[in-house]
């Protein structure tokens, strides 16, 4: 059966330090019968959305991406634009909602980008998790070849999948979409109370000791609830939780390191895709190979 084409917005991080997220997303989608086609000529999403009322500069790039998607949607006959990076998802979705609500802003942007066609507001920005939920977890269960039996996973959403409320993919205080997916894959999901707490985000650039403190807390609580790995979808959360364990370990005596993985990597393993060209374990600071050995 030919693969169905879906527009995919990778974002800049997936092209570099998060190759493991991109390749595992593409591989798992292919397994479900979809070809994720990279949005032609996409640009950076800007990572954080402008919160000032008079801010338009944070919206331009996103609306430009949505216009590109609008053009391409006609070609492939599907208006869904899937992003897997939490920041990209959050930005594109917020930009869409923002210009739909503030038509003046949309008009300003359309005039500013007079070389582009106007944005009509028909693009449905989705996170990969929502896409999978729509696809159906029962159907996904049928594709599982090597259930992740016995692997204790702490699901970690971070901020941008759940907040602000208008873009939340699930309940903002007690989400369960990631848990449901992980259970579908056969993993044992632990009750992780800090699943929607912030990792310190962009402070990792100039205040890394704060982020290390957050990492210390997030990882040690995951350890306390007996998790083997933490699964996330955000490349910035991944970087902070993975790399900042180095500082956390130097500062806190008795701190035990824990590997961090993307949920898509776990999905790939459960689908029987054991290929380092997809999983890219060399991009992890703390290698998950030992914990995931039974599925490798």
């Amino acid at each position, binding site marked *: 059966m030919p693969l169905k084409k879906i527009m995919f917005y990778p974002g800049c991080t997936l092209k570099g330090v998060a190759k493991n997220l991109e390749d595992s997303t593409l591989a798992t989608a292919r397994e479900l019968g979809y070809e994720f086609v990279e949005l032609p000529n996409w640009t950076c999403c800007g990572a954080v959305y402008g*919160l000032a009322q008079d801010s338009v500069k944070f919206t331009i790039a996103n609306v430009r991406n949505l216009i590109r998607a609008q053009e391409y949607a006609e070609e492939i006959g599907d208006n869904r634009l899937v992003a897997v990076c939490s*920041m990209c998802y959050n930005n594109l979705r917020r930009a869409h909602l923002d210009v739909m609500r503030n038509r003046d802003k949309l008009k300003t942007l359309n005039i500013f980008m007079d070389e582009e066609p106007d944005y009509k507001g028909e693009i449905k920005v989705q996170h990969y998790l929502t896409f999978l939920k729509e696809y159906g977890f029962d159907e996904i269960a049928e594709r599982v070849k090597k259930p992740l039996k016995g692997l204790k996973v702490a699901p970690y959403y971070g901020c941008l999948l759940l*907040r602000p409320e208008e873009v939340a993919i699930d309940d903002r205080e007690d989400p369960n979409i990631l848990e449901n997916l992980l259970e579908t894959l056969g993993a044992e999901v632990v009750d992780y109370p800090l699943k*929607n707490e912030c990792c310190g985000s*962009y402070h990792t*650039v100039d205040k890394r000791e704060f982020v290390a403190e957050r990492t210390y807390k997030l990882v040690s609580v995951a350890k306390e609830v007996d998790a083997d790995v933490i699964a996330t979808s955000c*490349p*910035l959360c991944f970087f902070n939780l993975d790399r900042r364990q180095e500082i956390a370990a130097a500062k806190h005596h008795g701190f035990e390191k824990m590997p961090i993985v993307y949920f898509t990597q776990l999905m790939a393993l459960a689908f029987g895709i054991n290929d380092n060209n997809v999983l890219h374990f060399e991009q992890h600071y703390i290698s998950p190979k030992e914990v995931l050995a039974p599925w490798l």
Partner: protein
Amino acid sequence: MKYTIKKDPHEDERVQEIIEISGQNIFSCYQCGRCSSGCPMAEFMDILPNQVFMYLQEGDVDTLLKAKTPWICAACFTCTVRCPVGLDLAAVMEAIRELQLRKNYDFVDPYKVEERDILPPIALVSNFRKFTP
């Protein structure tokens, strides 16, 4: 803690600017403290999020411009989704930062950033967007 009651904040230009930039009615805060109790970055702050509103309601913008708090807020929106009167605290923090950034103030010097080879692009882009004009 110590604070001084300043002139009517409704007439204070900078308070008005913060209200305008953030689009939030800062006078609706009634100090329940739910923002500060759930804030993941509160332990690093010198002024707690609820205290920021108290200073604003007293018209004491000078203290806020000297404070570390607006530069420690990570815009995670935990407080925003929990605020019982629906205030977007992250937008208010952004407005306090904007007040300074719009005067061409650099909180972070991009040339002095370390670990450039390993930091993900989203970390750098978001950091510079929040901390440089």
